[in-house]
């Protein structure tokens, strides 16, 4: 059985990747919306996004909309692949448990 991805498996990073993977490939989520969707604090969310970005799983785009800075996070192709493998492993664990005799 394949190993779970330790970077994605952390609860908040799992939520971040789940949210970004629910979008079309070209789309991203603003930091504020991601914060609302995951229920995380600014600092916590920023730290976990940085971990995902270092792994190459997400891309962070900082721009100004009018005079306001806006950070947009999107899943990279590598991140989408890693997330799909992580989900497949979770499903394998459940299937293996169902096959195992009591």
């Amino acid at each position, binding site marked *: 059985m394949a190993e*779970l991805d330790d970077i994605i498996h952390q609860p908040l990073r799992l939520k971040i990747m*789940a*949210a970004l993977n629910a979008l079309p490939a070209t789309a991203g989520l603003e930091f504020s919306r991601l914060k609302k969707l995951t229920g995380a604090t600014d600092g916590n969310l920023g730290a976990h996004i940085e971990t995902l970005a270092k792994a190459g799983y997400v891309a962070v785009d900082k721009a100004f909309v009018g005079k306001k800075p806006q950070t947009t996070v999107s899943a990279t192709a590598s991140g989408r692949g890693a997330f799909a493998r992580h989900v497949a492993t979770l499903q394998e664990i*459940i299937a293996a448990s169902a096959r195992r005799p009591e």
Partner: protein
Amino acid sequence: MIDSQQASEALAEINEVARRVRQSRIYNLASLMLIMWGVLVFAGYLGSFWLPRYAGYFWIALNVAGVAGSFAISAFGYPKTGIRTFDVRMLIAFLLFFAFGFLCTSVLGQFTPRQMGAVWPIYFMLLYIIAGLWMGHAFVAIGLGISVLALVGYFFIGDWFDLWMALVDGGGLILGGLWMRRS
């Protein structure tokens, strides 16, 4: 390695987050439509109040503008979201819905302008309420709220009915759209 219980919980969490993202995107796209239609409806009722003889022309023009605006919002949002919020099928559904309303209020029945002013928004809000059963409680709340206020206006607001409707229907859609953007 985790056990199957923890794996199930992780998958449930993933599904819940994905559901919230989908709903957030639906609200975000719908909010622009609601605000646009709110402005048009507000203008329509003001037109009906100030120039009642031309009300029919106003409403035809506003509906045409609304459909064109809906296509524009859909086309503008498509590259970013990958979702077409208003396409040819939606246009056909809108026309069928409109045709049935026209049949009931102007062919089979002869509604007064005041009855028209109450029935059309309630008829359209019925769509919001039905859509809300699948797309989120905000649609249900907006649909029910405007329907109730339209009935209050019909029964209790005298000569100011069109202004009341501009406020509760037009204003209600604008506020509803702003509320959805924050949800």
